[in-house]
C-alpha cells in the first residue's frame, strides 16, 4: 500500500515515470521480431559503451603527445589497457553491426516506402560514424594514421571556395602541433551527434512499425526484454572474445609505431572499417576526387529508395537477392584489395570492384527491380 502512495507521489511530480511504465508493459507490439532487427539497439548500446570508455580515455589523452599519452594510458593508468582495448574493439563491433544493418536493409528492401526516412537516418549514421571513426584513427597518432591526417589536411589547404573554407575551419590549416587537440573535440562532439541520429532513427522506425492490438499483441516486458537480453549477451560475448584475443583486429600493424614526420611507412592502409570507402576514394584522381568518391559512394546509398524501381508492392526477386550477396562480396573485395598494399594487381582489382559497386546501384538495381516487379 505504501509503495502505491509513493509511486503516485513521484509520478504526480514526474509523469515520465508512468509513461515509461506504459512503454514497458503495454501490450501493443507484434510477436516474433527477428533477432537481426535488434541491430540498431545493439549499435546504440555499443555507442553508450564507447562514450563511457571515451570519457575515461579523454581524461588522460593529450593531443600534443597523442602516441605517448596512449602509451601512458596502456601502461600507467589502472586498467587503462582494458579501456583502450574496449574503445578500439568497440569500433569494430559498431562498424560490424552497422555494415550488417545496411546489408540487411538492402537485402530485405527495408528502405522501401514508408521506410525511406528511416533508411536515410541509418545511412547518415553510417556516414557520421565513418567520420568519427577516421578521427579516432588519427588520434592514435601512429606511423600510418599520421600520414592519413597529414595528406588530408594538406589536401584540404588546396581546396578553394566553400569546401576550402570548411576544410580550413575543420583542420585549422596543415597538420601540426595543435591539430590532434582540436580533432579530439570534433571526435567527441560528432560522436555525441551520432546519438541524435540514433534517436531520430528510433523515432522514425517506431512510427512505421505495424500497429498490433488484441490477443496477438505482446508487451515490451518481458517478451522483448528477454530477447534483447539474449541479443546483448551474444553481442557482448563476441565483443569480449575480440577484446581479449584480437584487440587490434583489422589494423595496419605498422600503425603500432609512433608517428614520424620524416618516414613514410611502406603500406599506408586504413583500418578495416574505413577500407571499402578508402578504396572507392582512391579510384578518383585529383584533390577533389577523394571527396567525390566519398560523396558518390554514400550518395548511392542515400538514393537507394528511389533507385529501386519495383513500386510499392513489388516483391523481392531471386536475382536481386543474388546481386546483393555479390555486392557484399564486392565490398569485402574492395577492403581486401586496398588492405593488401600498393601493387598493380590490387590497383586493377580496386578499379573493377569500384565499377561494380556503382554498376550495382546505378544500373543493376533499377533494372532488376523493375523487371522482377512485373
Amino acid at each position, binding site marked *: 500500500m505504501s509503495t502505491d502512495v509513493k509511486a503516485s507521489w513521484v509520478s504526480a511530480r514526474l509523469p515520465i515515470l508512468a509513461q515509461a511504465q506504459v512503454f514497458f508493459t503495454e501490450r501493443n507490439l507484434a510477436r516474433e521480431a527477428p533477432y537481426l532487427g535488434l541491430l540498431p539497439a545493439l549499435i546504440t548500446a555499443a555507442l553508450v559503451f564507447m562514450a*563511457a*570508455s571515451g570519457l*575515461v580515455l579523454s*581524461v*588522460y589523452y593529450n593531443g600534443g603527445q597523442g602516441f605517448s599519452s596512449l602509451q*601512458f594510458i596502456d*601502461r*600507467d*593508468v*589502472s*586498467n*587503462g589497457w*582494458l*579501456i583502450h582495448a*574496449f574503445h578500439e574493439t568497440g569500433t569494430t563491433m559498431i562498424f560490424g553491426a552497422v555494415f550488417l544493418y545496411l546489408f540487411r536493409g538492402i537485402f530485405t528492401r527495408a528502405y522501401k516506402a514508408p521506410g525511406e526516412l528511416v533508411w536515410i537516418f541509418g545511412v547518415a549514421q553510417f556516414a557520421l560514424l565513418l567520420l568519427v571513426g577516421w578521427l579516432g584513427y588519427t588520434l592514435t597518432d601512429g606511423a600510418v594514421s599520421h600520414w592519413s591526417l597529414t595528406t588530408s589536411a594538406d589536401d584540404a589547404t588546396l581546396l578553394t571556395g566553400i569546401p576550402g573554407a570548411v576544410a580550413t575551419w575543420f583542420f585549422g590549416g596543415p597538420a601540426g602541433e595543435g591539430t590532434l587537440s582540436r580533432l579530439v573535440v570534433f571526435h567527441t562532439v560528432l560522436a555525441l551527434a551520432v546519438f541524435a541520429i540514433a534517436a531520430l532513427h528510433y523515432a522514425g522506425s517506431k512510427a512505421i512499425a505495424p500497429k498490433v492490438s488484441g490477443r496477438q499483441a505482446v508487451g515490451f516486458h518481458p517478451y522483448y526484454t528477454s530477447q534483447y537480453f539474449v541479443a546483448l549477451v551474444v553481442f557482448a560475448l563476441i565483443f569480449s572474445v575480440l577484446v581479449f584475443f584480437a584487440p587490434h583486429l583489422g589494423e595496419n600493424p605498422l600503425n603500432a609505431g609512433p608517428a614520424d614526420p620524416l618516414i613514410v611507412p611502406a603500406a599506408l592502409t586504413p583500418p578495416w572499417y574505413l577500407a571499402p570507402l578508402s578504396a572507392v576514394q582512391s579510384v578518383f584522381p585529383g584533390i577533389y576526387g577523394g571527396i567525390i568518391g566519398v560523396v558518390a559512394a554514400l550518395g548511392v546509398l542515400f538514393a537507394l529508395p528511389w533507385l529501386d524501381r519495383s513500386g510499392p508492392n513489388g516483391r523481392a526477386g531471386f536475382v536481386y537477392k543474388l546481386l546483393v550477396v555479390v555486392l557484399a562480396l564486392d565490398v569485402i573485395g574492395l577492403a581486401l584489395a586496398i588492405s593488401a598494399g600498393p601493387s598493380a594487381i590490387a590497383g586493377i582489382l580496386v578499379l573493377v570492384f569500384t565499377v561494380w559497386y556503382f554498376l550495382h546501384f546505378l544500373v543493376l538495381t533499377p533494372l532488376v527491380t523493375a523487371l522482377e516487379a512485373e
Partner: protein
Amino acid sequence: MAGTSVHAVGQEAESRRDFLKILTISGGVIGLGAIAWPFIDALGPDADGNAAAHMIVNVAAIAENTAIKVTWAGLPIYIRKLTAKQIADNEFVVPESLPDPASYTDRVKPGYESFVVVVGLNTGVPCELEGNDPSDTRGPFDGWVCPCDGSVYDPLGRVRSGPARKNLGIPRFTFLNDAQIQFG
C-alpha cells in the same frame, strides 16, 4: 486428489521460476558491476601520480643539525635530524608555556625521536622558513625563522614567538625502516 497434485506442480513451477529470476538478476548485477569496475578504477590515480603521492625519501644521509627540503603534495617538507643538545633543550619544555601547546613526543615518531618532519611554511604569512643549514639564521631557539614576518620556531617546529600562532604542520608519513620514510 487430481486437483491438489496440479496445484502442487504449479507451486513448484512458481518457485522454480522465482529462483531463476533471482539467479538471472543477481548474475546480471554482478556482470554489470564487473563491467563498471575497470571504468571506475581507471579514473583513480595513475601509477605516476600514485608513486608521487607515496614518495619515499632516504633520511640516512642527513647530517646531524641539518635539514633537507623535499617537495611533496606541492609543499616544501623539511626533514631535520636533531642534535643531542637540541633534544635535551626541548624535551622537558612545559607544553602549556608555549603559544601552541605540544609536547616533544607529539612532534616526533616513537623510535625515531631524532627526526623532525614538518611542512616548511610559516603558519602566519605563508613564507618558506630559513634555518635548514647550520650556517643559516636560526633564531634564539636554534630552529627556524621566517624571513617575511620574523616568526621564530624551535627545532621541533613549535612556534615560540612572532605573528604566527600555530606550530608547523606535520605531513602524513611513516618510517619504513631506519633509513627511509614514506609520505602519504
